């Protein structure tokens, strides 16, 4: 397609395009995996709406879908950054639980049911999440332990820590100022507050990723750590910040979860990390690093959410959702592989690392 629209490609003088950049903008959007997966989501919504116009396609139902996806969206923003650096963070679900548990304990110790107590709880939860993230980041960046192993380790440590602190019994005394506002409060009529918080995180996350130096360095570290290092990007510090961001958002998600469910739900997050990673990957972010969008992650979250909701409503056994999401996930990574090998003609494989297992070349 490019060769037909750009006849002067062969010219070897100054062939810098300026005029064609505007029309290419549209082509690029269409080619984006995030956009293609967005079309899949639209098709799903349309199909379920036609099948169940009176139940699925109701504001109250869609509101529920959005509300249920909100906590995962907050986690997804951090995970997108981590995966763009060609890392992975398995610990988010456990860090969420740990932060929520300690926050609940601190709020109970302080006592009372007012915004002062709630503010302390929120701060405790986020700070603890950041600390777990810094631990992950230091081990990944400085100790050079592969991120899969680091975060698998901190997954166990955070979850175990939460169970030690509670004796394995969920805490249920959450201040009602939190449950009534963040938990099931609404703004602008009937928009869930928790979803508005998630939206703010998404928008900020997208702006920082796509418009700032921090975002550029994130892509650079994932694209070629060595190239970034040679031009003076402080790669180690940046990785620590990325894992701290992911941990901090897990801490925020901890307080959101505490508010939404009025319990620490220690056992309830065992699949969270995998669901979030699946969403990020379905949204077109490359596990090999260097490529990805927040928009894609949000779309990637809604595919499983809409499937689950739609299957329940249309009477399909909801277990089919896991089958369908699994297939979509594999398809998404396959598309990424095809895209990578077609855009990297002639490029050396030497610097690539297969992200999960450290620094081996990816199997071809």
């Amino acid at each position, binding site marked *: 397609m490019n060769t037909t629209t750009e006849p002067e490609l062969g010219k070897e003088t*100054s062939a810098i395009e300026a005029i064609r950049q505007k029309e290419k903008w549209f082509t690029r959007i269409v080619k984006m995996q995030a956009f293609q997966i967005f079309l899949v989501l639209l098709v799903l919504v349309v199909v379920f709406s036609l099948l169940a116009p009176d139940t699925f396609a109701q504001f109250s139902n869609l509101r529920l879908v959005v509300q249920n996806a909100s906590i995962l969206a907050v986690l997804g923003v951090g995970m997108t950054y981590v995966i763009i650096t060609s890392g992975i963070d398995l610990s988010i679900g456990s860090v969420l639980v740990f932060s929520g548990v300690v926050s609940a304990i601190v709020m109970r110790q302080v006592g009372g049911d007012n915004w002062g107590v709630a503010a302390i709880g929120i701060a405790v939860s986020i700070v603890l999440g950041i600390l777990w993230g810094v631990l992950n980041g230091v081990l990944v960046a400085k100790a050079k332990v592969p991120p899969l192993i680091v975060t698998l380790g901190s997954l166990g440590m955070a979850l175990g820590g939460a169970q030690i602190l509670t004796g394995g019994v969920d805490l249920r005394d959450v201040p009602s100022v939190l449950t009534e506002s963040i938990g099931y409060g609404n703004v602008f009529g009937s928009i869930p507050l928790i979803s508005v918080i998630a939206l703010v995180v998404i928008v900020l996350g997208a702006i920082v990723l796509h418009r700032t130096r921090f975002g550029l360095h994130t892509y650079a570290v994932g694209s070629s750590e060595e190239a970034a290092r040679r031009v003076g990007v402080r790669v180690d510090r940046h990785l620590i910040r990325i894992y701290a961001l992911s941990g901090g958002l897990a801490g925020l998600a901890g307080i959101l979860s505490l508010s939404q469910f009025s319990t620490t739900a220690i056992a309830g997050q065992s699949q969270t990390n995998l669901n979030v990673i699946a969403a990020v990957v379905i949204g077109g972010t490359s596990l090999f690093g*260097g490529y990805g969008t927040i928009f894609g992650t949000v779309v990637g979250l809604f595919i499983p959410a809409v499937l689950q909701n739609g299957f329940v409503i249309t009477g399909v056994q909801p277990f089919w959702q896991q089958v369908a999401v699994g297939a979509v996930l594999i398809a998404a990574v396959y598309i990424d592989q095809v895209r990578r090998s077609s*855009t990297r003609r002639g490029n050396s494989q030497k610097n690539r690392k297969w992200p999960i297992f450290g620094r081996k070349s990816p199997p071809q």
Partner: protein
Amino acid sequence: MTTPVLEGRGLSRKFGFVSALDEADFEVFPGEVTALIGDNGAGKSTLVKALSGSLALDSGEIFFEGQPIVLSSPSQASLLGIETVYQDLALAPHLTPVQNVYLGRESMSRGIAGRLGFMNVPEMTNKSREAFEDLGATVRSLTAPVGSMSGGQRQAIAIARAVHWANRVIFLDEPTAALGVRQTKNVLDTIRRVRDKGIAVVFISHSMPHVIDIADRIQVLRLGTRVANITNSGTTMEELVGLMTGASTRTTP
């Protein structure tokens, strides 16, 4: 005689029991193309790494415009106007040419937006475009990832980046090794243009015809030591090969 812009004296570096550099001297003058040649393992890359701040030395002194300096990082060399184009180019494949040129040295927006980390994208784009046009470089798109471009284009981007930031010395490590006839000619023309701006160019190559074609001065390394430092007038390939392999010796300045 003018002061060398960059000079190394008695540079030594051992890797285990192997002396990669053994009391090597080296100097580059502004507005000159200095070819650095030598057989495999002669210490060329080690010397370049030492002089561009990527490798620490066991002993020896480095002078920049006559002043003794210690180069501890590539960024420090960059601050002095010393840039290196590595053989593997060291570009981030997912980033655009503009992002690659400015990576690590982004120009930020003015005022509060800049403090928040927002970049001045129009300025970076315009200046990168100028840098590419200055070189007559063929960069087909400023917005596509460089990983999707041909070897020649990526080479052009890497060189343009170095030229854009260097104002004293550029090291080019085997810049023509992976190129076709036409791109090679472009790179050699580029080197001449850069030299004519008054920048010192250090050209490392195994291709003796290119060296004879372009170099003003040729320095030969053998077994970690400089065995010849000659001006390029009437030099023949046989002579250079002889110096590299040790078949003949000639140590005139």
